[in-house]
């Protein structure tokens, strides 16, 4: 009998303990001076690249150890009906760019608005929450990953010997203007195509991207083709090259990585650090 009493006693304790979910500490959220700036664009259903910078005042916050992001599905009025994250993951930080930024590839299965909760762990051990919203389209306007890139017949030094008409870069590297995209694909080697306008977008979000291409080229050598397509084909009339429409682009900078068959394996809008570019090339080398 004693064991029965002991059993019921323990059972009572267990039931009491299980009668409620684990205690939830009251989240003492408070306003944070941190700001988020979304620096990539053209998000489509799937696993879009979402890149963001974190600012503390007017400077990039550089004391961040870790950022974990959760994606919440929002309605058309940007309101959540269910705060259960549809996806959570740790962001990859890239400090080898003029402005440090973070990248995630969230699994966003539906078009519409998605709320992103970024939990930002700082060097002093504190954690700050910052929310931002991305709008996801059913399809991408520009070549999606897994599709064949347009085999463009862009201008090169062979068709336009005056390099100053091929690029707005101050000190252009002729190596970036040797091939059309069609010719590059025909080589069977991976290709990096950058749509950039160094002189006309001098902000920190776009100007350093050409440097990232150069840094990657120095690393990979001739194993990878690198092509810079200047956004403008006339620096006085400011007309846009036909390849922008051909690739469905209405912003810059954009960088696409193609495999040896011309299939898009990575695509980057906005800032792109050498490390992020080289990481995308690694599987192709």
């Amino acid at each position, binding site marked *: 009998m004693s064991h029965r009493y002991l059993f019921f006693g323990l059972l009572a304790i267990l039931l009491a303990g299980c009668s409620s979910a684990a205690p939830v500490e009251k989240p003492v959220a408070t306003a*944070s001076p941190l700001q988020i700036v979304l620096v990539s664009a053209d998000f489509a259903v799937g696993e879009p690249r979402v890149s963001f910078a974190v600012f503390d005042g007017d400077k990039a916050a550089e004391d961040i150890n870790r950022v974990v992001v959760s994606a919440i599905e929002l309605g058309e009025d940007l309101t959540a009906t269910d705060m259960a994250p549809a996806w959570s993951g740790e962001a990859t930080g890239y400090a080898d760019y003029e402005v440090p930024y973070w990248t995630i590839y969230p699994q966003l299965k539906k078009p519409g608005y998605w709320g992103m909760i970024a939990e930002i762990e700082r060097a002093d051990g504190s954690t700050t929450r910052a929310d931002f919203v991305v709008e996801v389209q059913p399809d991408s306007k520009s070549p999606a990953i897994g599709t064949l890139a347009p085999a463009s017949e862009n201008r090169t030094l062979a068709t336009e010997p005056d390099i100053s008409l091929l690029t707005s870069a101050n000190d252009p590297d002729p190596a970036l203007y040797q091939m059309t995209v069609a010719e590059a694909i025909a080589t069977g080697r991976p290709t990096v195509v950058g749509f950039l306008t160094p002189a006309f977008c001098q902000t920190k979000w776009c100007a350093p991207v050409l440097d990232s291409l150069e840094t990657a080229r120095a690393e990979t050598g001739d194993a990878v083709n690198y092509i810079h397509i200047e956004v403008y084909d006339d620096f006085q009339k*400011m007309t846009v090259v036909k390849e922008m429409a051909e690739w469905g682009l209405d912003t810059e900078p954009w960088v696409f990585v193609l495999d040896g068959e011309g299939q898009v394996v990575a695509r980057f809008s906005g800032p792109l650090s050498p490390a992020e570019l080289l990481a995308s090339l690694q599987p192709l080398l």
Partner: protein
Amino acid sequence: MTLKHIAILVCCLALAAFGSPVFAHTELVSAEPAPGAQLAESPAEIRLTFSEPVAESSQIVLLTEDFQAVEGLVTQFNPAVPEQVYTPVPALEPGVYSVQWSAASVDGHEIKGSYTFSVGQAAQDSAVVEPATNATPASSDGETSSGLRWWLAGIVVVAVGLPLLLLAARRSGRRS
């Protein structure tokens, strides 16, 4: 200096004077309430100033901590200060709010960002993050009832479990 460089310089000066015609990237220069502001009372408006004139497709949205959009915001523009957008704000309950802004340059190129401010909350050194896996952020009532449940659970443990254990131990002692 080549003709191209002169042309580029002229274009850059023109862009500086009249705003970039194509691929501009505007930036948030100042905001009221400021990022991280801890306000005793609800602000009357949100006013954002950007680094260059912004198009009328620019927008301000205000979200609560649990992603509920605050109704009644209407993004407005002041032609006299084309770098600014603002919206009146209805009376806000105490809490933390995130300002979600999108600013389109006159060329239509858009950049988005966000920041938070709080209303009616005491200043604290750092934010404590709500666990992302916490499916439904509890309201203050929910938190109270959750805490109450645990107090009741404790009372049940003491009131029911302990006497039973003592009784079992006593009977066991009698037998031995």
